[in-house]
């Protein structure tokens, strides 16, 4: 069974993040790390591999040179091989272009299951898993809280706006898992060291048969028009309670004034 886990190298959410001059995310300015939600996808892949023989786990990423760090982390956690799609033309690609490139890459790799985190912590659109499924002509099980593989199907529990459902999708399929599905793992120092030396497969757009003008900022179907720094709200009035809850009257006045009571 072949599992492809999509991983992404993202700027650390704890660091200060900025827009670059072209209004894309300035990825060089902040230290990067493996997108946290992807660790749950890796965890699921490793769980599946533990239960059945002959599972090949491939970590796949698309991104600039630095993105190799995410692959190496995935290898240290237990992925068997890493594939990096890198091309200067990819800079500024939107979700449509990203899903196109990833679809070509997983198609070339061959797969029974594509596993993803629910979202990246930088763009946080959750668009790529269902877009990828659409491009591959496959069903998707998105936002799964649990996952098991049984009888050629991926079965998982998911929560929609109206219900909690257990659903099954036939393989091959695209599945995204939430942080409820398991626990991120911590690689050993030895595994980290080994992963640093591991060979990676590097693919360019040409390898995937995609023209440079189909992707990147120029081909993006959305465009950032403006970035407005959020005006920090000024602190309002603070009153001190009289130890008997008397401040509640002042609070009720405030809430009444704003029509909440």
């Amino acid at each position: 069974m072949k599992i492809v886990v999509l991983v992404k190298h993202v700027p650390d959410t704890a660091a200060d993040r900025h827009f670059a001059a072209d209004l894309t995310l300035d990825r060089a300015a902040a230290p990067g790390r493996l997108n946290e939600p992807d660790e749950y996808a890796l965890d699921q892949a490793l769980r599946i591999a533990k239960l059945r023989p002959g599972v090949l786990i491939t970590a796949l990423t698309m991104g600039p040179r630095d993105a190799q760090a995410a692959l190496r982390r995935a290898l240290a956690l237990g992925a068997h091989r890493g594939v990096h799609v890198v091309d200067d033309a990819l800079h500024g690609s939107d979700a449509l272009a990203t899903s196109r490139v990833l679809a070509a890459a997983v198609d070339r790799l061959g797969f029974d299951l594509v596993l993803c985190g629910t979202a990246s912590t930088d763009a946080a659109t959750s668009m790529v898993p269902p877009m990828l499924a659409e491009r591959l002509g496959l069903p998707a099980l998105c936002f799964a809280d649990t996952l098991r593989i049984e009888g050629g199907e991926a079965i998982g529990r998911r929560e929609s706006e109206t219900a909690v459902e257990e659903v099954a999708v036939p393989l091959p399929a695209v599945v995204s898992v939430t942080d409820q599905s398991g626990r991120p793992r911590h690689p050993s120092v030895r595994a980290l060291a080994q992963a640093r030396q591991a060979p990676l497969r590097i693919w360019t757009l040409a390898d995937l048969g995609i023209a440079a003008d189909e992707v990147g900022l120029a081909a993006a179907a959305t465009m950032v028009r403006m970035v407005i720094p959020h005006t920090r709200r000024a602190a309002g009035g603070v009153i001190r309670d009289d130890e008997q809850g008397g401040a509640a009257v002042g609070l009720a006045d405030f809430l009444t004034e704003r029509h909440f009571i």
Partner: protein
Amino acid sequence: MGPVLALVARDDDGEILRSSLAVVAMARRLGTPVAVLCGGDPDLVITGILGYYGVTRVIIAEDDEDSGDGANARGGGAGDADARGGGARDMDVWGDGVREARGSDAGDADARGVRGRDMVSLATAALVEIASREHPTAILTSCGPDARQVAARVAVRLDSGVITDAVDLMPGPGGPVAIQEAFTGSCLVGSAVRRGVPVITVRADAAVPEPAAVGEPVVVESVSVRRMRPGGVRVLSRAPKTAARRPDLTTAAVVVAGGRGVGSAAGFDLLGQVADALGGAVGGSRAAADLGWCPPQALVDQTGASVCPRLYVACGISGSVRHRAGMQDSRTIVAIDKDPAAPIFRIADFGVVGDLRRVLPALLAEIARRRGTAIGAAPALRHGGAPETLTSTRTSTRVPDPDRAARPQAAHAEARDLARVPDPDRAARPQAAHPETLDHAEA
């Protein structure tokens, strides 16, 4: 103004989700909202409610006769679609008898109903089909897990740009401009779509459904669509989330949240009472969630739910960077904490330095006094009573409220009057179902 397609979803009881009403409200900022519903009976109550919120046309999408979940037809899109479509229709066509007869064709009556179907593929096919005919200004969905997938798939099929999590929309010279938050709310980004029909997912908590009846009867049409690849997702079991009695955290207009300062799980019951009195949801900080005082789903945090309600009441929350990232865009922030140096006070519009275990009960009493009710009779304060009681207290305690739209249940009651539907079934149904199911949950 051109049509704006708004994907409207319903719960298992057929009630429109609050997030869908927010989608309609956002659609009005760009043009004329056209509601697209997947399956189900287009009854007069539903159209009445949608009309009340400014919808002029409702399009009900159903599976093409022979492309149900079981069939494997790879459709050519339009085909014989619209065979039943166009114009207002006689409601009897959708009577139960006809429905069941068709249902048995498909092998399973329930498969024809709204429940347990793969709504993602049906909604995707419907929006693609309708968009190709209507050339809408934009296609809007909520940010719910299913709606997001629909948006993604529609964007691929139409090769259209997609913008997610919009908190505001406005018309622009080159098409709609969507405002999103970036970097955990530290800046706002205005984006436009430059290819295809803009597909935009909108945040339910960012728009208050506002009554905007145009006074004309809502036109109901239907369209039968052929799914590209039916039968992908099989539902094995399903538990409707109708039990939630409070609005969902991510779509609630009011959130009352607690942190370490609440002191215990029992302390959260007090927060729950305040939330009920204000018609809100209960949230918790990382500390409260880690201590098990509130369920993990209630976590408001950078990694948990990110909320921007109209009112956020932070109780016993110091206001760490991570917590602020999840709530700092709330319209109004009230903080109650013992520590006057707590960072939460720096972003609060109103702060109370004091013991929340004294302040909150006093606040409950004060709210009850101002509403002219006994403490125990504040709206939905003591849940578990008969539905009638709940309804009557809601009505009797409703003060003249300029912001009435924030209370969908009240507005709905009016929408119902507006529609003047002789529907004994619905009238008999406990009214209390509405506030709950409407504010119903987004995962």
